């Protein structure tokens, strides 16, 4: 099986095959014999080249969040037949700003048409007894505001759309 991996700004060509109980993972032509044991859901013990790692691997679509002890790394994977990084990155048009936590909307700081700067506050959500300002990830114009003060929202709820 072939695919592409992106870590930060770096791309890798990956080939994975099985070898008995192990995996052979080739990264940019360099072969690694990986003894990976799935010990729990999303949790592996990995031995390779004498080194031992406990890693948790959570996937969200094509993104894998890999944690080893106190370190974490996001690895994006894409089918090698498609465009790799380009495919992973292509995003344009209006951007939905979603709540990253469940909570209660306490204030809405913008209205449709407001021009905002990157980092400017859009909505304030109270969760875990704290008020948290959700800011604009980039400059733009508010296309719609989809919540009202006092409203309870879940994680992923659309708060505002930027265009």
């Amino acid at each position, binding site marked *: 099986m072939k*695919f592409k991996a992106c*870590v930060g700004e770096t791309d890798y060509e990956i080939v994975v095959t099985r070898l008995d109980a192990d*995996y052979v993972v080739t990264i940019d032509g360099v072969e690694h014999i990986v003894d990976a044991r799935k010990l729990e859901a*999303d949790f592996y013990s*990995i031995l390779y080249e004498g080194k031992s790692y406990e890693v948790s691997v959570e996937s969200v679509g094509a993104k894998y969040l890999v944690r080893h002890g106190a370190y974490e790394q996001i690895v994006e994977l894409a089918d090698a037949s498609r465009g790799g990084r380009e495919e992973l990155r292509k995003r344009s048009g209006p951007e939905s700003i979603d709540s990253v936590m469940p909570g209660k909307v306490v204030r809405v700081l913008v209205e449709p048409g407001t021009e905002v700067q990157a980092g400017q506050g859009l909505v304030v959500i109270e969760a875990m007894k704290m008020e948290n300002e959700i800011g604009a990830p980039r400059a733009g114009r508010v296309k719609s505001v989809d919540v009202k003060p006092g409203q309870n929202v879940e994680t992923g709820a659309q708060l505002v759309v930027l265009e």
Partner: protein
Amino acid sequence: MAAPFRKLLIANRGEIAVRVIRACHEMGIRTVAVYSEADRDALHVRFAHEAYLIGPPPSSESYLRIDKILDVAKRSGAEAIHPGYGFLSENDEFSRACRDAGVVFVGPPPEAMEAMGDKVRSRELMMKAGVAVVPGSPPLTDAGEAVAYAEKIGYPVLLKASAGGGGKGMRVVRTSAELPSLLAQAQGEARSSFGDATVFLEKYVDRPRHIEVQILADAHGNCIHLGERECSIQRRHQKLIEESPSPVIDAATRAEIGAMAVKAAMACGYVSAGTVEMLRGANGSFYFMEMNTRLQVEHPVTEMVYGVDLVKAMIEIAAGAKLPWTQNQIVPRGHAIECRIIAEDPSRNFMPAPGTIRALRGPGGPGVRYDGGVYGGFTVPVHYDPMLAKLITWGADRDEAAARMTRALDELRVDGVKTSIAFHHRVMTHPAFLAGDLHTGFLEEHPELLSPGTDPWLSEVAVLAAAVAHFRRSEQLSLRGTKSGTSGGSSGWKRGARDGWRP
């Protein structure tokens, strides 16, 4: 030794409720938990001998409901109530209601609580007792008055809630322009957190260390201190990492500030465990900040260094016991550090990250204490404090305690929610932390601590792990595909059924 009470109610939740339950069980006291609808599956409900539902998730309808809690105490036959920290722990009305209901409140008498709980009154009391305080204002009525006081004291100034604690309703103000909006924010937070919007101003001491002294007083006029804790590493004025002793306090200074704390406690007729919080300026001068008339989150570091169980001591004192120690029997050994493991994302300015904990593994081995309030499979409610657990390590010296903490953080695994574990790991190995060069602006000074570092070697491991996981997932998907493929798929059967075909 007979148990001081037969049964005790814990008017709290999370790790501190579990902490109190543990002390009671060791003392042979039966425990009564109370819980909101959001906490049916919480650890304190599971660990207590008895558990009673007291209302819907919002604290104002459950953990802050004095009537409901006293009703449970009556129904269950609890003789005493431990309030933990937060919620009703510094509410003198609750303490009085317990007294009126004939239930022992494990904490100070309401009069001492009232005197110390109001920051404005406690400052006045301290000034009268001759203890140094930070210059400040009386309670503020409007923005104009606030600007006038701020200019008199000199910027930067700190807005603080009169009734508050834990950083709620606190704001640093650096210019008069930002004062009105920050004042409104502070008042709003004070109102929603404590039901009292009163705030006041204080001189903001630059590069201050947060130093606090633990005291224990009995009802027979005896009061001792158990040295200091340093809690300078904070976000939003809330502590993240605490330690005992402070790297900058020597034995002579300890005796001096300890005596000051005992004097403060005696001045208000204090009984039980309490903490006198001070700011230590870069020049070594101490200012009284406030007295917390309750158990502190960070009490374990003192327990590990002094070999004393503060919760048990509070319970014995509440039952009328005399302090079993004199000041010179209280001897420190080694060093302890606590990291508060919170469900927040440090790289997004400590934004709360509630959710379901998929898996949790606690650390073990020598010198490690783990006080948890959650478990794998538990959904962290959005209604309460984001603290999941406290990790405390002891070492023969500060370096060993920090190295042990680093090791324990490597072992601690909380999957499913964002936590501060990796952040704590970075602090424990940071040169400024290891040098003991701390102040309350530590994180602003070292913003690199907020973001995960990169390690080219670990990138390789991450790619390998993701690749294997991806491969396994694809294998499973294609396995399912193959199965349904060879069998002709389920659609054949469905069609057959729809067509009324039967064998």
